[in-house]
């Protein structure tokens, strides 16, 4: 067995060989087997986006984020703006079904209207991703805020601020037809059920309208100057609520909790100025990134639309005086559009 040489020599020889051939292999490169099918799965595909309306921070933010993530891969990104018109939205979804995009990203105005249409779309082979406002039909993916949780956490904040005070609170709801408003209200009720000492002196819908919110809040504050907290359902509307609190000279005395997409001007700056005490943000850029990630995953998975169904509820960011100054709590629409 001597002629085989000793094992040390053999190892040295093998290492020397490896040292010689190794760099040569690296120069040739190693093909990563999955990136090409991924690119092919995305290139030339159409993603259709149906928001309830453009021109507000949430939908503009999602649009900019999706575009940024998907267009570099050769995805064609089309938009059908329903412009607050449920019928127009349903028509857009219907016509999209015949146009057959690969993916539809749908922002529902309510729970029922699009439900049947979305089911049809998935049967026709279109992935449907529902965002922030789900419908009664569960599609491939839901990406968005958990409204019940938002209501719960806002109310918890208000209840805590009311400790040792009058325990009188007011609720400024959005539009009655909007599920986001109804779900948030459920969250509010969940917490209030645990706190029987809290008295709701007013619970009114302001229709997402700042002027109406202001009028309601003014009247409520005149009737109950010792109010200790307000649960508002959207920061765009609660600018009016905050203006009423400020005019009554009660800023800092009445705890105002609201929620929104976390755009800097609408959220952080208003928290900094003391208009809002708590703004539950569902961080739109992160939501957009999650939507884009889901689209990439679905397209590259080759799964049959409707065969897998999952949810990605957003991790909420509570914006208060403590973090309103930070760079990361809020986002700028102008940066996202760059």
């Amino acid at each position, binding site marked *: 067995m001597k002629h085989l040489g000793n094992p040390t020599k053999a190892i040295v020889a093998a290492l020397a060989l490896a040292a010689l051939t190794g760099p040569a292999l690296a120069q040739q490169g190693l093909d990563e087997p999955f990136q090409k099918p991924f690119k092919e799965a995305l290139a030339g595909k159409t993603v259709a986006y149906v928001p309830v309306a453009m021109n*507000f921070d949430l939908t503009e933010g999602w649009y900019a984020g999706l575009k940024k993530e998907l267009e570099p891969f050769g995805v064609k990104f089309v938009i059908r703006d329903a412009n607050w018109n449920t019928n127009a939205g349903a028509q857009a979804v219907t016509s999209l079904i015949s146009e057959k995009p690969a993916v539809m990203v749908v922002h529902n105005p309510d729970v029922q209207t699009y439900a049947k249409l979305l089911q049809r779309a998935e049967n026709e082979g279109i992935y449907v991703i529902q965002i922030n406002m789900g419908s009664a039909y569960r599609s491939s993916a839901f990406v968005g805020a958990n409204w019940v949780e938002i209501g719960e956490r806002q109310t918890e904040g208000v209840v805590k601020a009311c400790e040792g005070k009058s325990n009188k609170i007011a609720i400024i709801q959005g539009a009655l037809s909007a599920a986001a408003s109804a779900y948030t209200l459920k969250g509010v009720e969940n917490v209030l059920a645990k706190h029987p000492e809290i008295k709701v002196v007013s619970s009114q819908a302001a229709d997402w309208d700042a002027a109406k919110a202001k009028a309601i809040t003014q009247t409520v504050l*005149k009737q109950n100057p010792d109010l200790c907290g307000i649960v508002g359902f959207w920061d765009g509307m609660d600018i009016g609520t905050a203006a009423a609190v400020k005019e009554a000279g009660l800023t800092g005395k009445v705890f105002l909790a609201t929620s929104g997409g976390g755009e800097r001007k609408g959220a952080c700056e208003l928290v900094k100025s003391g208009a809002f005490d708590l703004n539950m943000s569902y961080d739109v850029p992160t939501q957009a990134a999650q939507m884009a990630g889901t689209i990439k995953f679905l397209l590259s998975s080759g799964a049959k639309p409707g065969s897998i169904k999952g949810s990605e509820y957003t991790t909420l960011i509570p914006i208060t005086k403590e973090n309103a100054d930070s760079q990361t709590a809020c986002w700028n629409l102008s940066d996202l559009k760059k």
Partner: protein
Amino acid sequence: MKRFRFNQQEIVFAVFALLFLVFSIFLSGFLTADNMLTLLQNVAVLGILGLAMAIVVIGRGIDISLIAALAVPPGLVLQMVQNGHSLPFSLLVAVLLTIAFGLVNGWLIAYAEVPSLFATLATGLLLAGLGQAVLFQLDVVQWSPGMNGFERLGQGTILGIPTSIWMFAIACIVVAFLLRQTRWGAYIYAIGDNPYAARVTGIPSRPIIVLQYVITALIGCFAGLVLAASVNSMPTRIFNSTLIYDVILVVVLGGIGLSGGRGGVLNVIIGTLLIGTMLNGMTIMDISYAGQNLIKGVVLLLAVITDSFLNPRNEETAQQGDI
């Protein structure tokens, strides 16, 4: 024998007085000085819009585009200041835009003879669309530091009375002066009462109609500035809301007949007070949104029916397509 009849203004005033009395007795916290001021403050913008609408309705027209004039030029002011322009320059641009808009409305109605309902429906959409597509980045145009000081137009108090009530009062005085003290005001009534007779007597009816729409748009813009100042932002989506129906409600309820030539500032004030009392009372009672809409709808319906009974259509001058 002369029949004893109430006119609509008196009926509405009686309803307002009754409602006010009932709320005062049964609703604790209604009849306080503070609540009265809140009541007025909450309807001040609506009242200003009512004055604007009254001018064209008296001239036998209607301006559905009023909410666009309320939303877009003031929104433009906020947007321009946000983009770094000075406040006076932005205000100037907004006023010029408003005047141009009023001229387009007036020209369409007076010279192209498009019925006012259709003309303003279209121009309103046009202006709102222009705002959404070209002028604004977002639906809600936020206040920016360059606007500081301007919020006093809609917030705070002067001599203990909220500023927006003063603004309503000023608008009332200006419009009352225009309608009752100037020759133009008399012409507006004449045109509203009988446009053909007005033209035959030598009243320059077409320029006067243009003037009506320019003034209406300017008052609408003023109301928008007060609104923006009071909520520290301009929610331009208000164009899609039902505010225009509330404005028509105020005008018709107050007793300004849609057939033109009747009514004045006092009618707007009464209509505004009634709406204000209703809204305030319903908010204190915490009536649901749907319930409030139902009540408002019934009241408008009653007002329109009463209007057509008390101000029957003028058989001599009424035309198909008139409202």
